[in-house]
């Protein structure tokens, strides 16, 4: 414990500015004397060692586990490294609408503007949008900004009920802001929105100003064009692509903006293997809600948009632009193989009537909430299989597992391996196999898929001369 306390002391000293004082002075001196002094400080060394230990544990965990969590991915080396590239935390206002420099303008080398230009350009292209706001610091911020920018006190909005996969971030905020919440009417058997009942709901409640398709437990593509046609002109239709962003950008799912959505938004760390950031893309640059939504993002909900993540976002989206179609197709093929494999093994897989899945997700029904929790945090975790538990949409309140194949697709697994994965999951879920025995098989399978060369990524370019120049600058 003494060591930990000492390490924490160093951090506190740094926070008080002691370290800054100690290292101020001549640059040349700092480059020689102070560095040597820092090396000789055992407390710094201990702090670094303890950090290294945590990274050893985490990296080994990621190497050794089958990641079947629908909401995570493996970012490539460049995405990981560029996050540390900017020297210091610069502010960057850069809203997605034309504006004069004002209170929120900050001096800039020009590099930030250049990076923002690259990022917004590729974002607009990938989502067939007129604008691309890179600033939300997460998917929740993005959808909350959409809610607050489109609805005022006394208005209403419609989204998926939690049991149907709706996101948790909106209802409490809506209640606090005086916005009425309505749920999308669903057909349990098909897991599709009942468009006729939605039209009736909106007609009966003229205060509804927003319909937001915020599903996180998502097996199907919703009939967006019919939904748009059923909604009055002034109702804002938003599509949350946090989960299926890469499938849309990769062209295996339709573009929401082309089917009538006013905006598409989402985070960039699920099927898109980027940093934990988010975006909002408007179909129309003159949309009356563009400015209020964007202003809710920044400066009203967040003043700091983590500009250091612009470059990693740009690389992640560029990977999608270059490899997205193959990646997205492989995701769908893998999800179908996993679902089919589980079904053949005798596991109850949701959605048999529509071929189990149209996305990266596969839902497995296991029983009670406790049962699902025990599996995901207990036996499956001990077997080296990482999943999350959910209330399965359309399963009459039964709970189960939400599996996602995007991370293992990036790791290089294909249909044949996904059938192996199905067998391993079934051994635990269905046959209650000893987790340690399954874990050995998981390790055996994953040894063929090391993490240092991710598929559908720029990892193979890391050793190129161009990357050497880039990284040389990044770490200069």
């Amino acid at each position, binding site marked *: *414990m*003494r*060591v*930990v306390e000492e390490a924490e002391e160093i951090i506190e000293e740094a926070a008080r500015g002691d370290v800054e004082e100690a290292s101020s002075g001549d640059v040349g001196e700092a480059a020689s004397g102070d560095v040597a002094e820092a090396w000789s400080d055992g407390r710094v060394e*201990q702090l670094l*060692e*303890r950090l*290294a*230990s*945590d990274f*050893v*544990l985490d990296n*080994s*965990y990621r*190497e*050794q586990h089958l990641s079947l969590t629908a909401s995570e991915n493996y970012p490539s*080396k460049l995405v990981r490294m560029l996050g540390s590239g900017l020297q210091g935390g610069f502010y960057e206002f850069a809203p997605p609408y034309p504006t004069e420099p004002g209170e929120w303008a900050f001096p800039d080398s020009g590099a930030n503007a250049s990076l923002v230009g690259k990022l917004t350009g590729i974002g607009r292209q990938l989502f067939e949008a007129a604008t691309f706001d890179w600033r939300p610091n997460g998917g929740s911020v993005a959808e909350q900004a959409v809610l607050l920018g489109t609805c005022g006190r006394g208005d209403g909005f419609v989204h998926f009920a939690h049991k149907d996969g709706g996101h948790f971030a909106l209802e409490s905020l809506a209640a606090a802001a005086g916005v009425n919440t309505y749920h999308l009417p669903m057909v349990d058997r098909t897991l599709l929105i009942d468009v006729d009942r939605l039209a009736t709901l909106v007609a009966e409640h003229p205060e509804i100003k927003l319909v937001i398709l915020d599903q996180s437990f998502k097996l199907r593509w919703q009939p967006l064009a019919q939904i748009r046609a059923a909604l009055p002109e002034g109702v804002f239709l938003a599509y949350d692509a946090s989960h299926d962003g890469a499938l849309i950008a990769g062209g295996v799912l339709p573009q929401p903006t082309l089917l009538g959505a006013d905006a598409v938004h989402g985070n960039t760390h699920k099927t898109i293997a980027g940093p934990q950031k988010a975006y909002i893309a408007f179909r129309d640059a003159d949309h009356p809600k563009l400015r209020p939504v964007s202003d809710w993002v920044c400066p009203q909900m967040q003043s700091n948009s983590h500009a250091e993540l612009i470059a990693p976002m740009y690389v992640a989206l560029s990977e999608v632009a270059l490899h997205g179609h193959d990646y997205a197709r492989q995701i769908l093929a893998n999800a179908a193989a996993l679902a089919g494999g589980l079904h053949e093994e005798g596991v109850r897989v949701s959605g048999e009537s529509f071929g189990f899945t149209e996305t990266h997700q596969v839902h497995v029904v296991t029983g009670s909430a406790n049962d699902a929790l025990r599996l995901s945090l207990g036996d499956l*975790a*001990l077997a*080296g299989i990482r999943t999350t538990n959910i209330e399965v949409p359309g399963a009459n309140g039964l709970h189960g597992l939400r599996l996602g194949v995007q991370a293992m697709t990036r790791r290089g697994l294909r249909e*044949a*391996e996904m*059938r*192996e994965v199905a*067998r391993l999951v079934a051994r635990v879920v269905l046959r209650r196999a000893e987790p*340690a025995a399954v*874990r*050995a*098989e*998981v*390790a*055996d*399978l994953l*040894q*063929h898929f*090391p993490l*240092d060369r991710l598929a559908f990524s720029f990892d193979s370019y*890391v*050793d*190129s*001369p161009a*990357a*050497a120049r*880039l*990284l*040389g600058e*990044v*770490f200069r």
Partner: protein
Amino acid sequence: MSALSAVLPGAALRRRTDAPHAVISAEVWHTEWARPLLEELGLRTVIADERLTAERVLDTLAAQSVAFVCEELPVSGLAALTWVARRIEALRRDDPLLGVVFMVEDPRALDPRALGPLVRTLTPGDTDLPAFLEEVRRVRREVHWELRNRRPELPAAPAGTRPERWSGTVPNFNVKHPSMLLPYALLSARTGRDVYCEISPQEALLFVADSGGRGPLAAVAEVFRTLQRDVDRLNSALGSRLRLHLDHADDYEVVRAACEAGFDSVMVDGSGRTLHQNVLFTNAATELARRYDVLVEGEIGCIDSAGLRKWSKTTTGDFTRFVADTDLDFVGAHIGQFHSFDYGFAATRRSLAEIGLLDDRAVGDDLHAFAEACARVEGALTDAGLPAYSAEHRLVAALARQAMEAGGADADTGVDGVLRAARARVPVFQRPLLDVLEKEWLERRLAKSRRKAELWDGVFATEPAREHRYAAIDHGLVRALTGVLRGTGRGLVVHGGSSLSRVDLATLPAHGVARVNFGSGVYADYLEALRAHLPVDLKSPSSDGTWKHVRRMSYLAEATRDWRSWTDAPPSFVDTFVSRLERCYAAPLRGRTPAEPVGGRS
């Protein structure tokens, strides 16, 4: 130079994904003398403390990837033994082979001899920690097949051309004893044809190996080399075309050993795995074998996955996919025959490793057993309500200390001597304590011996029984499978030839079957021929498992002691056996049908 190495220090780039982990408590890691000893092992280190306990780390990491946990030992004497027992139980919940190291400043705090297998102390100036790590890794490799299932490193120079196959259908006989090579070679010389003989690693270890002292793999490799030398000698002396084939190898190390010994052909057998894993294993093993100019046979379908002669034929669909996804010379399939296989080698490696660990501590007085007994009795005293300062607690602690100090195995200085001395001086009411302690100690020793005997029985229970009936092969399936292979340059192999009638055997050449393997039937025939020459009763009803094997091996060793000198003038039983090989096994494979009625074994 890579882009990363241009900007990051070399140490930061060194990927050590194959290095095992060590979980080190913060107290140990920050102990000045201990840390260099641990650092020089080059392991991936995770530092544990109150916020991230060793148990939590062990839950996160795959069991086989953690070599050992190293913690400080905060107490000494008998309390240390109790502490050690408790910690080992907690740390080894999921992996009984986890290495455990206790750091002690004073070597006298805990006698290492009192510790169990793969547990040790770390004291200032220790130099043998690398040897301990090596031992943990060695035992783990023996026990965990997945650690041996890593894709093998390939020899530098690729081979030239692929060796040529034979034409027609050749027999392949199991070698249960090296003396069986002579009749096989004679058969080849007399018929002027190729004859294959095969040996599996399990057979090599249990039937042929002189010693397993350097580990099962080394023993098997030595058998392979010896057999190859014998085969070369026989071929040279008799002009025979005897070839050596590796049977049922499901790990890369065995495949490599056979290739390096000079075998002509290897079976890379992934049929105990799922089809997908079978393909992965087969391809990696094939790539390895190709570097040695060796013919490769793969297996498809569950030939007998439970070892119980289960009837589950290869499906044409699986066979087609397997052939398409691999690059083999031969494919073995299940066409309805009886066939016992011996995946027992992996289990045998596990059993031998456990026996080794038991042997390791069961020396002399087995101070480990005595320490455990002391800790057990101390626990019982506490449970009975005796306070820690009581005379009885102190007596047990004193006995533990004296036994460690005595350290000898003879009646005067060993544990017996310590107990005898104590009996002479303690009050009568404390005497039962001594006898309970002795009972606990002896029971632990006995339990170890019992466990070893049980393990040996398990090892020798794998010997297949001979079938006394014929299987009905699925001729339609054989045609379908050979149809899949037609034009690919590959041949079908049929195992379990002893279970096929000679009529069925005689149909196989027409189907285009390349090789038929004969195992248990040939071995039984060899024993029968030998017993006619040198009578002995091998069918004692009381002998089973280990004893049955010991009897047979003893008899074979005695009866064939001079077999290498028989080349010029073989004993009559060898000729009898060669005739039988020709009549029952080789002739049908040249398409000759038997004269006698179908169904009888001549």
